């Protein structure tokens, strides 16, 4: 349970603005910022968060909400509270036409990056030894430990991989949506809906609900702009009404 996850998404956006400004390269920012943010996350996990793995969800939630506030205030102290932006790389700066609409080429890059990362995560979980151990530890941590695996290290690895992915998304989204102090909160609500409605621990469930949410918001912005902000919550409510554990949720063993 990590309510500060999207704070690292935001932090990566800010770090990327500084790296891009210093080097003049979006690609350097994309390569370096997620690694730096994941390293910060690993240090925090080692120092604080890791101590609460066995303390229950309430303690984890309280600590990570506090951490989210600390990160939010720290970014304001370092970068100010104005919105910042990162220019897309020149090679992705153009536009293209699709069904009469003119769209930025950069949007194609964002879609491709999301699909590639999703495929990579799914492949690691399904086809590698690391993925197998992660699935085992998620299903039964005590048994995994009793087979000789240090579950604490597995949790750390999963945490850092998750932070890297959030940070990568923060950098990729920076040229498209900008970087601003409340971006973590905006994404936290969306992430909560996607994870809960998809079913805790289900990658396919998260994917389907994320796509559904995107479509609902997209059409909502066109046909009912004033009410569109509520639509994601209708999606969450509708799913939980018929599937209380989410689309692909399963009861804990």
């Amino acid at each position: 349970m990590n309510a500060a996850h999207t704070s690292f998404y935001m932090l990566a956006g800010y770090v990327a603005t500084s790296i891009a400004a210093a080097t003049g390269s979006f690609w350097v920012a994309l390569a370096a910022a997620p690694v730096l943010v994941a390293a910060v996350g690993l240090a925090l996990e080692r120092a604080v968060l890791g101590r609460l793995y066995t303390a229950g969800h309430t303690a984890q939630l309280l600590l990570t909400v506090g951490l989210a506030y600390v990160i939010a205030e720290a970014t304001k102290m370092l970068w100010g509270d104005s919105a910042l932006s990162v220019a897309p790389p020149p090679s992705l700066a153009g536009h293209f036409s699709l069904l009469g609409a003119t769209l930025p080429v950069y949007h194609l890059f964002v879609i491709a990056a999301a699909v590639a990362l999703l495929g990579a995560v799914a492949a690691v979980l399904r086809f590698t030894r690391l993925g197998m151990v992660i699935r085992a530890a998620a299903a039964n941590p005590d048994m995994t430990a009793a087979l000789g695996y240090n579950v604490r290290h597995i949790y750390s690895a999963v945490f850092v991989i998750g932070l890297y992915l959030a940070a990568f998304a923060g950098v990729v989204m920076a040229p498209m949506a900008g970087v601003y102090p409340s971006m973590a909160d905006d994404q936290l609500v969306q992430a909560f809906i996607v994870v809960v409605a998809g079913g805790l621990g289900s990658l396919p469930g998260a994917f389907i609900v994320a796509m559904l949410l995107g479509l609902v918001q997209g059409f909502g912005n066109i046909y009912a702009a004033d009410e569109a902000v509520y639509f994601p919550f209708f999606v969450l409510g509708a799913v939980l009404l018929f599937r209380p554990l989410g689309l692909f949720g399963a009861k804990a063993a």
Partner: protein
Amino acid sequence: MFEIENLQAGYGATRILEDVSLAAAAGEIICLLGRNGAGKTTTMKTVMGLLPPRGGRISLGGARLGGLPPHAVARRGVGYVPEERAVFPSLTVAENLVMGDWRGRPAPRKTDEILGYFPRLRDKFGTRGAVLSGGEQQMLAIGRALMASPRLVLVDEPAEGLAPVVVQALEESFYRLAAAGLCIVIAESKLAVARRIATRIHVMGKGRTVFAGTAAELQDRHDIRREFLEV
């Protein structure tokens, strides 16, 4: 040599183990025998590091095990088969077996050796753990515990809920494993099962070891059987 001396453990404010002692050598099958609540499962969990000991000593081959985390206990040569079997439901039989060796992907020779003890698993190699029968799950759980070549295996209530023919197959695999030099400690609540498979029996009652000896010696101890075993 596996040894437990004066072990004490419990959950929260509740003390379950008051004074448990046990010694087992390579090639032995030891039965921890007792009614439900006698402390058999708690003893196994404490040896495995899933529950912290509050006193006493646990050692394997002279090296201390007591107080180590579970992964460290496993890495010192202890295999564990819990009462609920804990087969990973979304992993296939092959993946469950691979999980059994923490050192890395096991050699095909090792997998073949384990399947030699449990041939029924050969046809189920690609089947997910969740859809196996109870007997197949038990065989898989024991096979998985053997993948890292442990010196000691703790098996909690292996016959529970299984058909007699499956129990017989499991017992035969225990004989073969013990003959190969493995030390096996089995938690069991049925005297008849313990008589059949154990080289020595340790009777537990109220968190204590109240008897240690052979099945024949236990036969002569009416007081122990009446107070701690008979329903």
